[in-house]
Every structure is written in structure tokens, then in C-alpha cells.
């Protein structure tokens, strides 16, 4: 009992199909009840009782088989209904022959009302109205031929009777479609609600882990770094890098994405810091920008490479221990700046200054950007790399 309760929740779509099957079974039962009542009330009009009973038996058996098969499979197969329609057309002909009136009594033709009940399954089984109407037309013309040709019913009686099929299947089709559409919508919204709940649970779990990492491991690591508690330089920078990575993870911006400019520049800053140049990396604006993750590879490499050159130059020639790197991204451009307050140089005069200028500007020019290097003896060095948005929006690089 409890096992059954714990089973997978039945989807609304499955429930709608189940309802459709019950409707089918109900209409068939109603059709059979109608046959029974006609036989009882009009028994005097029938001449060949064994044949009538055989036809009734066949119709009953077919209905039972159809209902059971649909219940087992959880729905109606269109091919079954095509077979069902063929069967009904055949039964209409046989029934017409067996009940052909000797006295003008058309009511004894019990197969017509039965098929009227039976045709509901066409509207349930087919999704396209055209299919429904085609099969209905087959059934209706089968009836009309049998009724006029074999049962000798008057045309004024047969025509409206035949139209009844169309009314039945069209209405059933429309109702079944609404039923299924509603069920699908209910399923979709439930699936969405479940996905949202799962997502929320994941986020909360993640936040919990982040808090634990933050309150214990990260705080301790950062304290070690800040107070230079570890004397060994290599170990110190290793711990600093680990702390930076852990903080990025805790704050939801993991730093191990190779295609991410933010990751790459953080990596570069850490590398230079480990080598003795303290690089302060201001990246709040880049962090919030989508541009960081969608740069073409060559643009990314050019920017990282040029920034690397600039920082290497600071470490080699500026005679300072610190530099500030800043990256911003707006709708129209990406800017990375590198500044130090070191001894500076005269860009026109210094041989390595010329080389630096070339190695930085050439890289950036190649990807459609512009670089400038400003320096003067005693005034530090400022390098600015600018990449217009055309370089990552797919259009040709602007001059």
C-alpha cells in the first residue's frame, strides 16, 4: 500500500490519457447497452437470430479488446482506430443486411447508433483534425452506402444521420485536444517548479559549503598571507595563490577557466606577485561583465600577452615592488591599464623602451585595438590597452 503511494507521481498527461480511455470504454458500453435495448424491444422484427447474436458478439468482443488494449498501453494507437473504423464499416454492412426492414421500420438497424457511439474514439486517437475528418468521412460513407444500398433507408433520413458522425468526432477531438493541452501545461509548470526547487536547494548547499570554507579555511589562509606568517617565500606565494583561488570559488567566480580574461589576468597578477612584484588587480567592473568570457582566442592572448609584457617591464626596469593593473569592459570597449610609480623612462631614448613599445602595441594592433605607453624619467609608467567591441562582436576590427 505504502509502496504504491510512494510510486512516481503520475503526470497530468498520463492522467488525461487515462481519462480518455475511460471515456472510450464508457461510450462503447453505452453503445452495447443500446444494442441490447433495441434487441429486447424489437425482437419481433428480426428474422435471423443466430446471425444477429453473432454480430452482437463480435461487436462486443471488439469493444472489449480495444478497451483492454488501450488501458494496457495507456493510450489509443491511431492504427487500432483505423482497424476499428474498417471493422465498424463492415459491421454496418452486415447489420444492414440482417436488419433490412420488411415493414419500413428503420429503427431496427441497431448498428448505426452503435457506430455513432464508437466514432468518439476517432476524435480521441488523432491529433490532426484532417485525419479525424478523413476517417469520419470513411465511416459516414460506409454507413450511408449500407443504409441506402442494403437497408433501403430513405436518403432524407440517411444524410442527417451521416452528419451526426462529424459532429461527434469534431467535438471529441476539440475536447481531447484541450484536455491534453491543459495536462501538458500542468506538467510543464510542475517540471519547472521542481527544477527551480532543485536549483534553489543546490544554491543553498553551495552557499553553505562556501560559508564553511570561508569561515574556516579561507580566513586562516588569508591571515597567514596577510601577516607573512610563513617565512619561506615560495611557500608564502603558494598559500597566497591558494587563498585567491579559494576566495574566487567562494564568491562564485572560479578562476580556472582558460577562456576567461578575468581568470587569465588574475593568474598573471599572481604569477608576477609570486616573482616579487606585488600586482594589485582591480577587476570589479570586468568581473560583472559578460565580455570577459566571450573574447576570441587571439584577442584574449593579445591582451594577456601585452599585459604580461608591461608587468615584466615594471619588474625589470621600474625599480618598484608594486604595480596596479585595472581592467574594465563597457559596451564599446575593453580597457586594461598597468601603472607603476617607478623611475620611468624616456620612451624615445631608451633602447628597451622602444622594444617594449613595439612588443606591446604590435600585439594589440594586430587584433584591432590600440595601445599607448606614457612614461617620463621619475614619473612612473602608464600602459593602456584598448580593444574596441568590434573585435569581439564578430565584425571586422575597426582601424
Amino acid at each position: 500500500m505504502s509502496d504504491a503511494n510512494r510510486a512516481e507521481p503520475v503526470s497530468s498527461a498520463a492522467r488525461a490519457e487515462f481519462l480518455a480511455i475511460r471515456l472510450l470504454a464508457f461510450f462503447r458500453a453505452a453503445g452495447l447497452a443500446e444494442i441490447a435495448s433495441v434487441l429486447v424491444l424489437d425482437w419481433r422484427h428480426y428474422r435471423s437470430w443466430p446471425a444477429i447474436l453473432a454480430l452482437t458478439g463480435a461487436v462486443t468482443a471488439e469493444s472489449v479488446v480495444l478497451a483492454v488494449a488501450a488501458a494496457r498501453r495507456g493510450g489509443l494507437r491511431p492504427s487500432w482506430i483505423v482497424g476499428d473504423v474498417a471493422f465498424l464499416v463492415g459491421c454496418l454492412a452486415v447489420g444492414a443486411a440482417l436488419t433490412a426492414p420488411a415493414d419500413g421500420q428503420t429503427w431496427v438497424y441497431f448498428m448505426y447508433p452503435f457506430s455513432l457511439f464508437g466514432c468518439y474514439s476517432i476524435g480521441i486517437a488523432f491529433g490532426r483534425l484532417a485525419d479525424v475528418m478523413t476517417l469520419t468521412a470513411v465511416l459516414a460513407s460506409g454507413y450511408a452506402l449500407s443504409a441506402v444500398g442494403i437497408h433501403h433507408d430513405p436518403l432524407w433520413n440517411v444524410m442527417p444521420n451521416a452528419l451526426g458522425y462529424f459532429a461527434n468526432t469534431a467535438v471529441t477531438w476539440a475536447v481531447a485536444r484541450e484536455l491534453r493541452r491543459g495536462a501538458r501545461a500542468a506538467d510543464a509548470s510542475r517540471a519547472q517548479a521542481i527544477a527551480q526547487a532543485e536549483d534553489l536547494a543546490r544554491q543553498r548547499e553551495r552557499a553553505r559549503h562556501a560559508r564553511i570554507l570561508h569561515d574556516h579555511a579561507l580566513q586562516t589562509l588569508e591571515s597567514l598571507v596577510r601577516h607573512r606568517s610563513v617565512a619561506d617565500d615560495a611557500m608564502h606565494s603558494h598559500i597566497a595563490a591558494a587563498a585567491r583561488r579559494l576566495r574566487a570559488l567562494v564568491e562564485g567566480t572560479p578562476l580556472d577557466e582558460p577562456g576567461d580574461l578575468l581568470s587569465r589576468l588574475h593568474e598573471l597578477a599572481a604569477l608576477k606577485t609570486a616573482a616579487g612584484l606585488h600586482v594589485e588587480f582591480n577587476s570589479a567592473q570586468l568581473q560583472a561583465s559578460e565580455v570577459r568570457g566571450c573574447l576570441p582566442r587571439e584577442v584574449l592572448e593579445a591582451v594577456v600577452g601585452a599585459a604580461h609584457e608591461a608587468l615584466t617591464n615594471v619588474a625589470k626596469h621600474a625599480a618598484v615592488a608594486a604595480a596596479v593593473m585595472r581592467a574594465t569592459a563597457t559596451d564599446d570597449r575593453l580597457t586594461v591599464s598597468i601603472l607603476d610609480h617607478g623611475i620611468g623612462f624616456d620612451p624615445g631614448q631608451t633602447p628597451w623602451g622602444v622594444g617594449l613599445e613595439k612588443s606591446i602595441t604590435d600585439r594589440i594592433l594586430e587584433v584591432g585595438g590600440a595601445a599607448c605607453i606614457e612614461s617620463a624619467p621619475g614619473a612612473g609608467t602608464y600602459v593602456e590597452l584598448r580593444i574596441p567591441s568590434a573585435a569581439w562582436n564578430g565584425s571586422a576590427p575597426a582601424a
Partner: protein
Amino acid sequence: MIQVAIIDDHPVARRGLESILGDAGDIAVTISVATPLELAAGDIDGRLLADVVLLDLYHQSDNPCLSVISELRTAMKVLVISASGRPADVLGAIRSGASGYLTKLADPEMLVSAIRTVASGGFALSSQLADILQAELVRCHQPGGEAPSGGASQSGDRAGDLLSPREEQTLDLIARGFTHTQTAHRMGVTKATVDTYVERIRAKLQVGNKAELTRAALQRIAPPRTGE
């Protein structure tokens, strides 16, 4: 002598801060406690215990102690130090009246110079803080936000309409690492003018378009709880 109080719930961090400040020479740590309550308890005879309080932003909780900042600032200068560099936290702290904000990765010299700036009544606008403030102001005023659109320029990379173009430029240059003097030189004004811009930025952040920005910041700081 600048008297400094420390509020940080992490004992190792407290010890580290005490030793850095002790080495500075002109700074004395008068009280070092884990919670703001303990600071109040230590303040027996109503005397001010410190000129500057160095306040850790998170205390055993998921929410930054912004209300503590607005209370403490009435009695002393507040310099926030936090491991979190989350832009919303930083903006929230400044809006609540902090005179500066340092992350825990800031090096000792930066900490000491920030304390000196704050003690003398200034706004310790480090390049990191300028970077975060600018990023957050841009975000608060992005299209789709509720920015009042009366500004003349629509250039897209302005820090909203809160700051004037010159203040915005000041913030931008400081974020790149330029000193006030260098910033003044680049803008073609005197250092005193840049100092004035920096003060105006602080004033605008703390009293300016308050309702809007605080709401934007608070929404990010404290996302709606979904029940526990």
C-alpha cells in the same frame, strides 16, 4: 597618536592587525574585541575609546553589519576591513557612513596610510575601493535600472547620473592607480580640486540619491530568504 579600536571576530586576524598597527609608530590600539557589543561594554565612563574603529564587516552571520557602521560613525571614524570584496558590500559600507574600505588582502602600508587618512577626517579612497565603487555605480544605473535619466551625457560608461563627469573621471583615474597629484595633473586641475572631488564623491554616496542606491545594494546583500 591615533587611537584605534579593532572589531574582528577572528582572533588570528585581530592579532595580525594589532601588530601591524603597533609597528606604525603613530598609532595606538586602545581596544581590540570580537563584537561591537564588547566595544560598547568597554566604554565604561562614556569616554571615546578611539578616533578610528577598524571594523570587520561580517560577524558570524551572512549579512554585513551595516547598521553597526551607521551607529559607530556618530562617535568615531569607521574604516571597514573585510575579506569580502563584493561590490554590493563595499557600496553598502560606504553608504552607511564608512570612511574607507580595505580588503583583507591589502598590504600593511596601505592599512596604515588608510588609518592616517581616515583619522584626519578624509575619505580613504584606495584604487581598489574606487574600482569597486565605479563598477557598482555603473551597475546600479544600468539601462533597465531606475536611474533618473536627466543627465546630459549618455556615454554608457559613466557611473550613473549620481556623479558629475569630473567626479567620475576622478574615480576612474584613482581606480587605475594614479595618486591624487597625478590625477590632478591628468585632469589639468590642482590637487586640492581632486581632493574636493573625492570628498564630493563620498558626500554624494552617503547622502545622495539614497533610497534608490541603498535599495539596490541591499537587494544584493540580502537576497530574499526562502525559509529554512
